């Protein structure tokens, strides 16, 4: 996909996110909207992956979502990549759905390789997959996404140490660096300090994407990150995003972390998210 198509897809994914969360009056729109451009870039441009879906992910790039609460963006991107029918997005968080509140393998939803939701576990799982790819001489990459507040979970730092020690230079971990978490700004809840220095002191290569909601900036940052793989160190992207990006009234605070828009708010959001081209709502 070219830049304009990627931008259009990101807008469509944002429409999916607000409609899914509105439809069940439950879910997490804020972080989903913030990570939309990154996930669209990964699934529609950067990753080599097969929507026919093979759990083992041999000879393809593999993505793990650690901050599982942003399942709306994950599901939308998977559906629109062809992993499962787009119409299934309407079942999100409803009874008998494969689209659980947090991603799960239990219902066999194509594209999901691990359950996530209880925070702090995804980097470990991604490290296991990256280790397996090394054992198999598989040159493809492992991508993972974690929240910034999520880094308060100690298991992440175990994984960060592990990945450096085992020279997992086939792994790119993005931190959704929006500075927000449920109880407020991360700097007030539990300061993360200098994340760049922290990752570097653990012997990772660290890049920053300053405009994590600008598709061109995301693409450029990802290309740079890929160029750093295979050089003995795992790669971290500090992805600066805005929670709620694309929907004006959801931006600028943590308040839309985990609540759903009303009918009137949905209308405003959809007015702001205007799509072009042939894609359309589910």
């Amino acid at each position: 996909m070219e830049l304009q198509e990627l931008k259009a897809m990101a807008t469509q994914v944002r429409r999916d996110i607000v409609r899914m969360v509105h439809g069940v009056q439950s879910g997490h729109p804020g972080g989903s909207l913030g990570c939309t451009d990154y996930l669209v870039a990964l699934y529609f441009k950067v990753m080599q992956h097969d929507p026919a879906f093979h759990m083992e992910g041999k000879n393809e790039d593999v993505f793990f979502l650690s901050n599982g609460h942003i399942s709306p963006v994950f599901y939308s991107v998977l559906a629109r990549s062809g992993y499962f029918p787009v119409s299934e997005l309407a079942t999100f968080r409803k009874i008998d759905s494969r689209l659980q509140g947090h991603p799960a393998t239990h219902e066999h939803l194509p594209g999901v390789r691990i359950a996530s939701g209880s925070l702090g576990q995804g980097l470990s799982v991604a490290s296991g997959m990256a280790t397996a790819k090394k054992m198999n001489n598989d040159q493809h990459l492992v991508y993972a996404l974690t929240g910034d507040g999520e880094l308060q979970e100690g298991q992440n730092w175990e994984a960060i140490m592990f990945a450096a020690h085992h020279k997992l230079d086939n792994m790119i971990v993005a931190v959704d660096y929006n500075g927000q978490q449920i109880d407020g700004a991360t700097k007030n809840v539990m300061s993360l300090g200098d994340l760049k220095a922290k990752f570097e002191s653990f012997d990772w290569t660290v890049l920053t994407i300053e405009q994590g909601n600008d598709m061109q900036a995301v693409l450029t940052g990802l290309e740079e990150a890929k160029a750093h793989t295979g050089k003995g160190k795992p790669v971290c992207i500090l992805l600066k995003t805005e929670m709620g990006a694309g929907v004006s009234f959801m931006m600028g605070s943590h308040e839309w972390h985990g609540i759903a828009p009303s009918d009137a708010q949905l209308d405003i959001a959809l007015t702001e998210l205007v799509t072009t081209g042939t894609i359309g709502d589910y």
Partner: protein
Amino acid sequence: MLQDYTASSEKETRAGFGDGIYELAKQNPDVVALTADLAGSLKLNNFIKDFPERFVQCGIAEANMIGVAAGLATAGKIPYTTTFANFSTSRVYDQIRQSVAYSHKNVKICASHAGLTLGEDGATHQILEDIGMMRMLPGMTVIVPCDYNQTKAATIAISKIESPVYLRFGRVKWANFTKEDGSDFVIGKAQVLNEGTDVTIIACGHLVWTALEAARTLEAKGLSVEVINMHTIKPLDEEAVIKSLTKTGCVVTAEEHQINGGLGDAIANVASRNCPVPHEYVAVNDTFGESGKPVQLLEKYGLGQTNIIAAVEKVIARKQK
């Protein structure tokens, strides 16, 4: 027949694990061993020497080890995680629950130094709640082999089932009496060691041998004692339990575990729904352990041969009321 069982040697069950995974690694190139700084304690030395490319050292970071294993399993490997039983379960329960059990990953959680027979290290390390925690998890297979030979056989056998497994063993030198080739071990199939009609003793782990010794004493007193080695606690061989309890009409369960949540409760669950009979527990009575020699601890906390005999006499008296 009880006299068929003689201890060919005294060996640690953890050595059965180490020898089992080494044999298995020769047969199956997908087997990977992970440890959290306890490779020596889990007897992985031969594995590491001959298969260094399939050994993953995780350092003292068990939560990460479980996640790494889940990632390896996702990729089609058969990861065996190794550490002490308390660090294999209570310390990492949420990681096991979400990344392994709920995600149905083919991870083999191999746990040594379980129970009181850990000995001198004391209660911080003597986990007595692990069977309960692990059997509560949907889809988890829970196996507690009784001796060296059986631990070796189980270590190999679990590679052949596509399921998360909790394999529990220990550090103490203990009677080794099951078949050397492991042919008497089948996952999910209760092992009836002795047939009897007056009482059923169902045991797991180290207490299987204790149960056999108790049965010998009881048979000398004229009782007919059925002894079952319930090495697989989940999925439980319900048919074997019902068959035996229906025949004998009473049961004693014996385990190196808390009275709550373990083998005894698993048996009580089956019995209460199918064939309620008088039941006595030989287990740790809702307390923590302490430092001491393994046999001293088993005696002090009520897990000795005399405790099994007393429980049998009590349960038979209840049956006759």
